């Protein structure tokens, strides 16, 4: 690869931005997969309010759990 291209600041910034976005997408995909199984029984033509709040709570609790697990590991 052209060394000038590898050092292009615009490109470097683009790549780190895209990497961050890809990581965020991956977290969302993982949590959606788990929470879908827990919160949605039969997919209807519209989410009920309890399904919507289940999904939202599920996502936030998943993150809480992640923090807890990380803390637990740091203690050891």
């Amino acid at each position, binding site marked *: *690869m*052209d060394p*000038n*291209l590898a050092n*292009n600041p*615009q*490109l470097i910034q*683009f*790549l780190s931005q*895209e990497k961050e976005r*890809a990581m*965020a*997408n991956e*977290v*969302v*995909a993982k*949590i*959606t*997969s788990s*929470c*879908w*199984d827990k*919160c*949605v029984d*039969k*997919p*209807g*033509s519209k*989410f009920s309010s309890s399904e*919507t709040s289940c*999904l*939202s709570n*599920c*996502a*936030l609790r998943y*993150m809480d759990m992640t923090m807890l697990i990380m803390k637990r590991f740091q203690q050891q």
Partner: protein
Amino acid sequence: MDSYSSSSPPMGASPSPEALMEQIQAQLAEAYAKELIETMREKCFDKCITKPGSSLSSGESSCISRCVDRYLEATGIISRSLFSQQRR
């Protein structure tokens, strides 16, 4: 890869950063779509085709289309609850 070689410049010349970024973005979008479709196939098959019959019933077909819509909606709901400002 096909999509790469067809749009890459002749040997020797380096692609412009803009062209490279565009290519990367297109490939990322493709990978994301593929993964999403794969997940929805799995999830909606589990929910909608509980007892596979000799053909896809109309009930199963409409369940699948609702399932796809709801899965996309669920992705949005979760993304918003994780990344919106008003987090407790």
